[in-house]
């Protein structure tokens, strides 16, 4: 059973000028229980629209979606969801403690459990000493940390985070990443929407890329970033240029730049034949590494392809 399942999910906004705006177009996605899933996309790609649809904050114009096996719009299932919205605005007239108390009650939490959990969560995000300060006096980073505490308050099975590290300093981000990994270890599902690709790459098991409301790519981070066919062989000594032609007979294309040989191989068998060829001709291999793309490269490629 998937934590999130969407089929052809579509959202079209009708505007006063009668030009309909398609914010999301036929998005089909699966998020498995216990994984950290990253949703990527440029501004206006439809990421926040997707999340709002999942939570019933806006209504779909087509397709269907299930969250924790319940249809979207099912109010009861939200007891098991924690959500941190992008640019959230906590009531400025409440203190941090009151925010968690009121939203905890709205989340259906019992008195004693709520009170102990509030202290626990505020300590977790290092906001304990600001508990009785009104949120109007909080900095952006403090609000973000309170937002995390709010999202985690009901010990949710599914955590939906929209740009969660915005406003956090590098130390805060590191702690946040550790927290996500810890939550995954406890079997929680995390749906993460972030612009910070390096962060997504570090913590997410799988990602999907949205562009202009369409899903343009999805898969595991490892699969997507590993260019399986490109290997980089670093030699210990220079080789005569003539050898390059012989190696090209084994696998093409091939490029030699000083001690670095970059080759494209079809499979592991071909990689071993290339290594044999190098060694037969006296080449001394220092290392063989499969070339990896960064998520950023992949993201830019996916988004640019889609634009063209």
């Amino acid at each position, binding site marked *: 059973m998937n934590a999130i399942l969407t089929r052809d999910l579509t959202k079209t906004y009708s505007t006063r000028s009668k030009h309909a705006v398609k914010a999301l177009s036929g998005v089909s996605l699966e998020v498995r229980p216990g994984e950290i899933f990253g949703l990527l996309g440029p501004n206006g790609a439809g990421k926040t629209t997707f999340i709002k649809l999942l*939570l019933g*904050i806006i209504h779909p114009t087509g397709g269907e979606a299930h969250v924790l096996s319940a249809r979207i719009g099912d109010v009861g299932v*939200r007891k098991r969801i924690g*959500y941190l*919205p992008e640019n959230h605005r906590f009531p400025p*007239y409440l203190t941090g403690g009151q925010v968690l108390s009121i*939203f905890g*009650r709205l*989340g259906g939490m019992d008195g004693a459990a709520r009170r102990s959990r509030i202290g626990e969560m505020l300590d977790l995000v290092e906001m304990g000493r600001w508990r009785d300060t009104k949120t109007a006096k909080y900095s952006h980073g403090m609000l973000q940390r309170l937002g995390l505490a*709010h999202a985690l308050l009901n010990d949710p099975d599914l955590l939906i985070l929209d740009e969660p590290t915005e406003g956090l300093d590098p130390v805060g981000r590191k702690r946040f990443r550790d927290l996500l990994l810890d939550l995954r270890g406890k079997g929680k599902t995390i749906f993460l929407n972030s612009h910070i690709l390096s962060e997504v790459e570090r913590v997410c098991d799988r990602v999907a890329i949205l562009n202009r409301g369409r899903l343009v790519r999805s898969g595991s981070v490892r699969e997507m970033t590993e260019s399986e066919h490109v290997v980089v062989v670093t030699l210990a000594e220079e080789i005569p240029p003539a050898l390059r032609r012989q190696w090209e007979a084994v696998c093409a294309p091939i490029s030699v730049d000083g001690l670095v040989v970059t080759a494209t191989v079809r499979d592991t068998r071909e990689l071993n034949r290339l290594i044999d060829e190098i060694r037969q001709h006296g080449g001394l291999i220092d290392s063989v590494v499969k070339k990896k793309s960064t998520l950023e490269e992949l993201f830019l490629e996916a988004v640019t392809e889609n634009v063209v």
Partner: protein
Amino acid sequence: MSIPALVEDTLRSRAKAITVLLGIAAFFLLLATIVALVTDVPSAFTANVTVPTDRTVPSGASPIEFLVGMVYGGLAALTQFVAILVSVFITAGILPSTMERGTVELYLSKPLSRARLLTGRFVGCLAIVALTTGFFAIGMWTIIGLETGVWNPAFLSVILTATLCFAVLYTMMMVLGIATRSAASTIIVVFLFVYILAPILRNRQGWLFAISENRLYRSVMDLLYYIFPKPEEIAATANALIGGQSVSWMPVWSSVLFGAAMFAFAVFLFERKDL
């Protein structure tokens, strides 16, 4: 659990305004107490105030009871007028601010239906009116009662009529707030209704019927009068109760029906809205 939490949230959102209102009410109560302490009000009343010529003291009532009843009536009218006026201003922004981006997501991501969110806000706003009106009315009633020995519990009905009147108007404000997301336009429309449209409809026989003798036109005006709420007449109910006069309940139940329909419409609009 969610409704009390929403009521608390609503009260906290207007804590400053409530404190100011209670402060003003406390000031007037203090003033009344000082007057009561330095003056023998019943003697001053009987010596200086006479029953108006167009009024007669009901049988069984003393002149002082009658005069105090008139004071109660004046206070009731004033209390309701101020309560409605101020409450509309204080509460008009509550729903639009709840619907602001970044805020509404926090509420709607909870296991809380939109109808329940609206109900919580509605009850919270009524609590503001009941609390402030109740504080002033109970305070005044106690001071007058202690000073004159005349205890007229009907004066306390002003708490109910002011709250009811506001409740009906607030259902209109909910619809307007959801449709426009603007506190200013909500205030303008509600005040236009309370101070222009409702009095015109109430006095339709003198004003609107003078425009045309057409039966259909007059029937439509009558229908509009019966459909729309009647804030002035609800407020007058308290005065009728204080004076021991017979009460016409039509303005109350027809206004309550209108309020119920508006509340249902507000829920319908809110349920369908993309936020």
